[in-house]
C-alpha cells in the first residue's frame, strides 16, 4: 500500500495519510512471504504493510485470501518470509492473540454450548477472570445484537446467528486487530448493514480490520483500502481510486450528464487524452474515455465557465472496485 491510508470518518485516532507515518509495531507486515502446500502454491512473495483501518482482501476462489488470513493468525506457517502483527511474530500465540481476533469461515463450534457459554468459555481460556469474562461476554453479545439468543444452544442457531456469534467471539477480548473471513456471509440485509456499521465503528476506534468478501460493492463501501489477489499473487493494493488511477493502460470512463452532449462531444474529441466519446442512449449524456482524468476535469471546468453547455453531473463510471477487479482479474471472478 503506497499511499493514502486515511482513517474512517469520525476517527478518534489522528488521521495519518501516509503509511510511512506508521511504525512497524503499529502495522501488519508481510515480508516476502510465500506459502506452498507441497507443490501447490498458496501465496507467493507477498510483501505488505497494512496500516489501521479497514482493509479488504478481494479475489476469486482460490486466490489466496484465506491462506493470507491463516498465515496472519499463525494457523498456517509461511514456507518463506516473515509476518509480524503489530510487531509480534505469528508463531507466538501467547502474545499474538491478546491483540488479535479471528472470525474464521469454518461454520463449526464446540458442541453443546449456548452462545453465551461459548464466548465466556474461550475468554476463560484466554485467562480472563471469571467476572470480567462475564462482562466482556455481555458486551460482545450486545455488539452483535445477540443478547437474548445468547442463552440458547448454538445448535439451534440460523446461519446468520452462527456468523454473528463467531464475530462476537472474535471481538470479545477486545483485540486491536480483527481478521474476518467472509463475515457478511449468511446475514440478512438489515444485519449486514448493522455489521458494516460495527466494522466502521471499530475501524474508527483505531483497530485494524482485515476483511475478505466476495461482495464487491460492500467492500467498496466499507474499505479504506483493498488488496486484490489472484492465483496467490497480490495483483494490486491500496485505495480503490488510487489503484484505478495507476491503471493508465485502462482509460478512465466518465459519464457527463448535460443538455448538449453532441456539442460537448465535439469539444472534447480533439483533446489528445480523450480516446473515445460516445452519446448516452437517452441522448442526455456523454460517455468519455480519457487517459488523463485530471486534465479532462480541468477542461470541463472551462466548459462550465463558458456557460454554453449546461452540465448537470459528472460521474466516473469505472472508478470503483468492480471495475478495478474486472480489469485486473477478469470477469471470471467478478461475481464470486
Amino acid at each position, binding site marked *: 500500500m503506497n499511499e493514502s491510508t486515511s482513517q474512517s470518518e469520525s476517527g478518534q485516532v489522528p488521521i495519518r495519510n501516509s503509511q510511512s507515518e506508521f511504525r512497524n509495531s503499529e502495522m501488519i507486515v508481510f515480508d516476502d512471504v510465500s506459502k506452498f502446500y507441497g507443490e501447490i502454491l498458496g501465496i507467493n512473495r507477498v510483501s505488505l504493510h497494512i496500516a489501521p483501518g479497514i482493509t479488504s482482501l478481494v479475489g476469486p476462489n482460490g486466490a489466496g485470501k*484465506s491462506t493470507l488470513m491463516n498465515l496472519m493468525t499463525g494457523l498456517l506457517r509461511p514456507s518463506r518470509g516473515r509476518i509480524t502483527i503489530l510487531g509480534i511474530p505469528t508463531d507466538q*500465540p501467547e502474545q499474538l492473540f491478546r491483540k488479535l481476533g*479471528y472470525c474464521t469461515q469454518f461454520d463449526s463450534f464446540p*458442541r*453443546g454450548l449456548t452462545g453465551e457459554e461459548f464466548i465466556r468459555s*474461550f475468554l476463560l481460556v484466554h485467562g480472563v477472570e471469571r467476572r470480567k469474562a462475564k462482562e466482556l461476554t455481555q458486551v460482545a453479545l450486545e455488539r452483535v445484537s445477540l443478547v437474548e439468543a445468547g442463552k440458547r444452544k448454538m445448535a439451534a442457531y440460523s446461519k446468520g446467528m452462527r456468523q454473528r456469534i463467531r464475530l462476537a467471539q472474535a471481538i470479545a477480548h477486545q483485540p486491536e486487530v480483527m481478521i474476518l473471513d467472509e463475515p457478511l456471509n449468511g446475514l440478512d440485509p438489515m444485519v449486514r448493514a448493522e455489521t458494516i456499521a460495527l466494522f466502521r465503528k471499530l475501524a474508527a476506534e483505531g483497530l485494524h480490520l482485515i476483511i475478505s468478501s466476495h461482495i464487491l460493492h460492500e467492500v467498496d463501501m466499507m474499505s479504506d483500502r483493498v488488496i486484490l489477489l489472484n492465483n496467490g499473487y497480490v495483483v494490486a493494493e491500496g485505495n480503490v481510486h488510487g489503484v484505478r488511477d495507476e491503471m493508465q493502460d485502462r482509460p478512465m470512463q466518465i459519464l457527463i450528464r448535460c443538455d448538449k452532449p453532441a456539442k460537448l462531444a465535439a469539444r472534447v474529441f480533439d483533446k489528445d487524452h480523450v480516446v473515445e466519446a460516445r452519446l448516452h442512449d437517452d441522448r442526455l449524456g456523454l460517455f468519455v474515455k480519457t487517459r488523463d482524468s485530471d486534465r479532462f476535469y480541468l477542461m470541463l471546468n472551462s466548459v462550465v465557465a463558458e456557460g454554453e453547455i449546461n452540465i448537470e453531473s459528472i460521474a466516473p463510471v469505472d472508478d470503483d472496485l468492480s471495475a478495478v477487479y474486472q480489469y485486473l482479474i477478469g470477469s471470471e471472478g467478478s461475481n464470486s
Partner: protein
Amino acid sequence: MSSSTIDVKPEGIEKPPLPWALWWRQIRAIFRLEIEKNFLSRRSILLYLLALIPIVPLVLLAPFTPPGDEWQDFGRYNMIFAVYYGGLILRTVVFFGCAWIFMNLFRGDMIDRSLHFYFLSPVRREILVAGKYLSGLVTSIILFTGTTILAMLLLYLPHFPSESSRFFLDGHGLGQLLTYCGITMLACVGYGAFFLVVGLFFRNPIIPAIVLYGWEWLNFLMPPLLKKISVIHYLQSLTPVPVSEGPFAVVAEPTPAWIAVPSLVLVTVLVLVIASRRIRHMEIRYGGD
C-alpha cells in the same frame, strides 16, 4: 569511598517470571470445556457402553453361582478376578477406552473443525496439551476405576456375602481393590499419553492402536528385554495376584513397583513433551480458500 553498591543489571537480561497463575487458570478453563465434552457429548455414549462391558456379565451372574469348582471356592475368587481384570478390564476396556478418549482430544476437535478456537487463543500450546490430557485422565480414571471397583464388588458380594464382607473389611480385599484401582489409574496415565500422541501424528489412529493392542497381547511371548518396551509389563508387575500367562510364556522377573511406577510416569512425561512439540508446530488446514 562510596563505591557503587548498587547492583546494576543490564536491561533485558532478567527474564520476567513465568505466569503460573495465568497458566493454571487456562488449564482449568480448558479442562472444564473438555471434561464436559468427554462426559456429555455423543461420543461419550460409546465410552459408557465400553465401561459397562465387564459389569453386565457380573450383574447377570449375580443371582446364581455358576457351575464349576472354582466358583464354589471363595479362596479362588481372587484368581478369577485377577484373570477377569487382566484380560477384560485392563487389556480391553481400559485400553480401548483410553484410545477413544485420548485420541479424540485433538483428533475429535479436528473432525469437528473446532480446534482452531484453541489455536486462536493466547495459550501456550503446552498448556493446551496439559489441559486436554488432564481432562482425558480424569475422565478415564473416573470411568475405569469405577468399572474396576464395581466389577470386583459384583464378583465377590453376591456369591459369598459374609466372607466377602470380612475379606474387604478385615482381610486383603480392600488392599487388593486399591491396588487394582491404582493399576487402572496408571494404565490411564500411560495409555492416555500414548494415544494422545497417536491422535496428533496419525490421520487414522486406529491402525497404530491395533498395532499396540497386538504388541501388548503378545507381550507374554517376548524376550525379557522387549517385554519392557510395553505398558502392560509394568502394570502386570504391580498386580496383587500374579496370573500365569500359559505354557508358552517367556518368564521374566516382574519389575519392582518402585521402578515400574516412576518408569511409567517418566515415559508419560516424555511422550507429553513430544506431543507439545508436535502441537507447537501444528497447522490447521481443515478449510481451503
